């Protein structure tokens, strides 16, 4: 029991949870609306896309890399597929768009993977490059424009919901989108892959010490390659979800999300230097960011102050875990810069 408690007190997730509870309490006090069925559902709804992105980002960060190309990748994959299907007025089921998006995501991810596996260059540089290429292809070569009406199956998928939460007092109804299941599924799969496959442990091993991973007999290049393929697929799925739920294809809608997602993942305790991180933390970190972004009005933060608030959150949030780490280093007298 006691070691467990110690472990808990050491864990980043624990402090994160505290912060979340505090923020929730604040929102509740200011608005009395936080712990209402439909607000919870709203948050869940808002979390789907960032959550999906966060899973891929977490896997890449654990391997010691960093990927800033996923929003561009997702936008390109989904735009190409949607416009193609719309041009051919596809009226069939969701399976085709889903399949195509996943395939395209895999191909673009493989593009990242090929570079990351072959070159010893920091992946920030690589993915900065590919991000520009992806964006350029979408907006330049494909000349992307807004697509007002989606193939019916995508639109339905976007509207479909698991259940509808009603707020007894205000009577407001919020629907839990089916895509939330996708998030759950992807998290479950990622959890299994990272914890129960040699591939997943390899990702951790590479993040811990790449040279040792090679010596131990991990196929480091292969692992890296497939890692980025998976990240690409997850990102593409996230893009499909966003587009379907919006009911329209806005090509630039996802661009610029990368840094905030990375912030959420690191907030969740995934080391930006690789090797450590947990999906629990990742989901908590994402939840915190999403919560704050979507509760400014509830808290009553004036529009003009919202960016200040967000900035402070990031600084304080990451600051807490940073201080934790430093403390631990001191305690164990680990010599570090």
């Amino acid at each position, binding site marked *: 029991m006691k070691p467990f408690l110690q472990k808990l007190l050491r864990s980043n997730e624990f402090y994160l949870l505290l912060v979340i509870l505090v923020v929730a309490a604040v929102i509740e006090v200011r608005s009395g609306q936080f712990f209402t069925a439909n607000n919870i559902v709203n948050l869940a709804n808002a979390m789907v896309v960032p959550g999906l992105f966060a899973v891929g980002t977490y896997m890449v960060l654990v391997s*010691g890399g960093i990927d800033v190309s996923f929003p561009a990748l997702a936008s390109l994959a989904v735009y190409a597929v949607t416009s193609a299907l719309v041009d051919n007025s596809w009226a069939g089921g969701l399976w085709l768009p889903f399949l195509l998006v996943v395939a395209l995501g895999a191909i673009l991810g493989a593009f990242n993977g090929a*570079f990351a596996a*072959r*070159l*010893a*260059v*920091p992946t*920030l*540089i*690589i993915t*900065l*490059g*590919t*991000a*520009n*290429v*992806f*964006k*350029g*292809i*979408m*907006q*330049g*070569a494909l*000349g992307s424009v807004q697509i007002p009406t989606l193939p019916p199956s995508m639109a339905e998928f976007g509207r479909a919901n698991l259940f509808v939460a009603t707020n007894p007092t205000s009577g407001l109804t919020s629907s839990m989108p089916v895509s939330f299941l996708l998030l759950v599924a992807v998290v479950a799969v990622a959890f299994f892959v990272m914890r129960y496959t040699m591939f997943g442990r390899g990702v951790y091993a590479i993040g811990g010490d*790449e*040279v040792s991973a*090679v010596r131990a007999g991990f196929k480091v290049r292969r692992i890296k390659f497939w890692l980025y393929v998976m990240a690409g697929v997850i990102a593409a799925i996230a893009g499909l979800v966003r587009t379907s739920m919006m009911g329209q294809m806005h090509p630039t809608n996802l661009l610029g999300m990368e*840094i905030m997602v*990375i*912030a959420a993942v*690191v907030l969740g305790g995934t080391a*930006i*230097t*690789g090797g450590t991180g947990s999906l629990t933390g990742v989901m908590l970190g994402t939840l915190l960011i999403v919560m704050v972004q979507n509760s400014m009005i509830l808290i009553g933060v004036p529009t*003009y*102050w*919202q*960016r*200040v*608030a*967000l*900035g*402070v*959150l*990031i*600084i304080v949030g*990451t*600051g807490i875990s*940073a*201080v934790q*780490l*430093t403390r631990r280093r001191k305690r164990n007298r680990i*010599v*570090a*810069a």
Partner: protein
Amino acid sequence: MTTTTTPDKQGIGTRFLSLARTDAHVTRLVVILLALLVMFAAIRPGNFANSYTWISMAVSFPEFGLMALGVMVCMVTGGIDLSVVGIANLSSIIAAMVMLALAPGGSGTAIGAAIAIALVVGALAGILNGILVAVVKIPAILATLGTLELFIGISIVLTAGSPISGLPPEYSALMAARLGGVLPMQFVVFLVAVALVALIMGRTTFGTKIYMLGTNATSAKFSGLNSVSLLIRTYLFSGILSAMAGLVMLANYNSAKADYGVVYTLLTVLIVVLGGVNPNGGSGRLIGVVLAIVILQILSSGLNLFPEISNFYRDLIWGGVLLLVIATSEITARNPFKRKQKEVS
């Protein structure tokens, strides 16, 4: 650097050949630049020969060039500064407010004071970044992301989001001036900054120290270097360069606003890595970054000569160039087990 204003290939050639020998990466950038100039001259001789083409570029790139220099010095320590745009806008907004407060009609002292205060604001913002990175030890990429939001946020609060304009004409006149009839003031400011960076990174002990720090923070610590003060000074320097960028933008747009040039955030990072600075710290040369700045400027201005080619190809080309450069650099010298420096965040 004078290449942008005097497109004389002979000069460029000889000037860079000597340089090329010193550094393979610089060589690659020089080759790319020359290729660009040749293409440009071949396809659009009219514009190539027209000095205004080069002058207008020299007016444009100092804005993000100055910010890129700031990002570079931070990256040499293994960090990064994503808040440069935020600092630039915040300091130019405050400068504008000061000008209007002191002397709406404009006066030498008012402008002087405004410039001074802008630089102070930049320095303070940089110090905040430095403290978050060095003392609180937040990974730089997150700390400066947070302060980016913070600085833009403060700017919005100060201005309610709307631009501050109607500045005293003297100020924009000051910047509109052309040194010796040709060199735009913005460009002169940039040259001064480049000289400053060259001096500090190459000729002072501070420069040697931050390269050491970026290479191996632990051994730097054991060598008695004070990483906290070094990092704070680095981000402070970046803050001042960003403030200079802010002052240039204040002149170029004769107004200050919370969200001018937000697209520069990633652009500057792109430039710096293209310039050959290793995000893990410890390596990277000024000349490379300057070449990268010029290359990207010529690319985007060149693209605007072709209405039929969408501006979005710019991203494609930038990304392509970056990937090309790293790919070739890998082929020339590769060490698959190269350990990545992880000490500094």
